């Protein structure tokens, strides 16, 4: 019954008027950026990070979390109505969702997407509540070797799950680790790769890298494709038919399960979950030819999976203090701004914060269904804002957001540099997600590597002699092996192609 008490505490925190308000703001902002194609949750969180400094910790984290899962809802709306994924995790929803819309079933596609997401969100909230306490207790036993091995697993995970070439993904991780080491060395105070610039003394700002590689680079890529007004379709009746419900139910259950598991994995989260759930549905279906022509399962499965994955990716963050994807890295940034060191101790020391965030996720999901279904017309109107008016505003937001973090104009210029670099990476087929994970983990890994070797008096075998560390490394090795084996590599490429 500890679980019920914890959840009761959480809801007491989440249902205060102030926290409800920030949950609503987060859900609204999330839906907004989810609907608008040129701007993703990562860039938005990066931009809003400075403003959270003025909020109490719980409210700040509730709002930021709301933006993340709100974006999943908003992204699927545009995917279904205009065949334009507002978020990368909604790419697969386009395939069948838009076909349903063209057949005059837009309303039921939207309703199925929203209800599947709500169901997945409810289950994922419970998964977090059940899985977190034992994981935190385990993590409290971790010393430097375990932390190093855990981060190694995280990096390998991001490499394995990145799309495209494995070698390039590993190189991106190495580059990220190296960029993460820029600045004064913690142990010796030695300035590394600072070139005498004051702004590099504390290292390259995380927001600078994230905003450049994701925010600015995304604008540059969008500007290449000529814009045309999206053809909108009539929404039709919102209630799905009984036959549709019968198909959607089992697909939602499977999607939720896949999303809940893949979300916890390092490098996982909403994007991977939706792709995997879609590929799985198609494979087990007795009529795979219906997929791509308006199959209900093709909407229910990825939509439930991306929402479940978005939420369970909070588990490693809340219990271990390790980010599983760039968005979670920003959440760590937000916690640090508030003076909270993320890690297994948070649950014991700040139970109200911990359980309040978890409960707010469920409240937020409920709000999103209410926001999205009746107000759908308003969100669709937003799509008519032409991109040529939108992107200068986004560039301005990025510039002010970066500047306001440290009042440094050098960092604004540096953001331009990382934007250009992100564009080059895109053109060369290098995915930036592994780089950003390496960037966050670089200094932490170096620190724990040093400590581990001091504990063991310089014996590198220490990582293999401690059981938890050994098993983490074994899992990492296994993951790598799975990709290197040619047969499995083929199925991996296939899974992404099917998406």
């Amino acid at each position, binding site marked *: 019954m500890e679980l019920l008490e914890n959840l009761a505490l959480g809801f007491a925190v989440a249902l205060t008027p102030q926290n409800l308000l920030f949950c609503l703001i987060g859900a609204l902002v999330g839906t907004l950026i989810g609907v608008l194609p040129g701007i993703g949750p990562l860039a938005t969180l990066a931009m809003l990070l400075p403003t959270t400094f003025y909020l109490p910790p719980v409210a700040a984290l509730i709002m930021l979390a709301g933006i993340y899962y709100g974006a999943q809802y908003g992204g699927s709306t545009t995917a279904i109505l205009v065949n334009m994924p507002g978020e990368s995790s909604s790419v697969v929803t386009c395939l069948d969702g838009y076909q349903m819309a063209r057949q005059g079933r837009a309303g039921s596609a939207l309703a199925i997407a929203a209800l599947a997401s709500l169901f997945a969100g409810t289950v994922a909230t419970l998964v977090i509540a059940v899985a977190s306490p034992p994981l935190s207790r385990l993590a409290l036993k971790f010393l430097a070797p375990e932390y190093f091995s855990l981060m190694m697993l995280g990096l390998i995970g991001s490499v394995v799950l990145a799309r495209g*070439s494995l070698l390039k993904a590993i*190189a991106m991780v*190495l580059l990220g*680790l190296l960029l993460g080491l820029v600045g004064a060395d913690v142990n010796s105070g030695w300035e590394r790769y600072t070139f005498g610039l004051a702004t590099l003394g504390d290292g390259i700002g995380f927001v600078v890298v994230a905003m450049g590689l994701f925010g600015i680079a995304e604008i*540059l890529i969008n500007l290449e494709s000529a814009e045309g007004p999206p053809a909108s379709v009539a929404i039709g009746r919102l209630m799905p038919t009984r036959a549709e419900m019968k198909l959607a139910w089992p697909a939602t259950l499977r999607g939720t399960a896949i999303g809940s598991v893949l979300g916890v994995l390092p490098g996982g989260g909403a994007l991977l979950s939706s792709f995997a759930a879609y590929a799985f549905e198609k494979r087990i279906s007795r009529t795979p030819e219906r997929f791509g022509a308006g199959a209900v399962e093709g909407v229910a499965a990825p939509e439930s999976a991306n929402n479940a994955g978005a939420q369970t990716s909070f588990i490693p963050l809340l219990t271990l203090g390790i980010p599983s994807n760039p968005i979670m890295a920003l959440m760590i940034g937000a916690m640090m701004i508030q003076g909270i060191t993320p890690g297994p101790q948070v649950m014991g020391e700040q139970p109200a914060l911990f359980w309040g965030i978890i409960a707010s996720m469920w409240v937020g999901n409920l709000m999103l269904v209410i926001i999205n279904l009746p107000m759908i017309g308003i969100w669709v109107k937003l799509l008519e804002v032409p991109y040529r008016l939108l992107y200068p*505003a986004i*560039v301005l937001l990025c510039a*002010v957001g970066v500047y306001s973090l440290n009042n440094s104009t050098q960092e604004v210029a540096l953001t331009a540099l990382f934007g250009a670099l992100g564009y080059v990476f895109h053109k*060369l087929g290098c995915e930036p997600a592994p780089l950003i994970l390496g960037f966050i983990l670089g200094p932490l890994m170096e620190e724990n590597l040093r400590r581990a*070797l001091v504990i063991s008096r310089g014996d590198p075998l220490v990582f293999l002699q401690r059981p938890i560390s050994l098993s983490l490394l074994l899992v990492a090795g296994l993951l790598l092996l799975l990709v290197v084996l040619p047969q499995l590599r083929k199925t991996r490429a296939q899974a992404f192609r099917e998406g």
Partner: protein
Amino acid sequence: MSRNGATMNAHPRVNQDVLAGLLFAAFGAAGLWFGWNYPLGSVLRMGPGYVPMALSWGLVALGGVIVLRGIFAGGAGLERWRARPLALVCAALIAFAVLLESTGLVAASVALVLVSALAGPQWRWREAAMLAVGLAIAAVALFVYGLRLPMPVWPF
């Protein structure tokens, strides 16, 4: 999902992999060049140069492998590069960085919006000017008065 419709190039020896490998190797070489005199220390007591050197060597080696694989096994061809949006959006950010502390948020915002609007496919003077003024007002209202971020508004 195929990766943004990349096509095979007529010159297979210059492809995405070759250039990406060269880029990684160049970053590694820069890491070695600038970090050459950082103290390495020992395995037991690592100096500030130990991990950066290891990573830089790794980047050089892996970059080399990616280049070789690109030459011999081939890779996705290069797409067309568009220099105009790249140059103008970066220029807009740099203009903002240069102008903000000397001339204030209004002038910096107007410059940023005008220059970045030039990067778009349909550039119209009147529209861009109206957008610049509107966004400058919104930025001052939101950031200076709303969120109380400390930054100058006017040059004086």
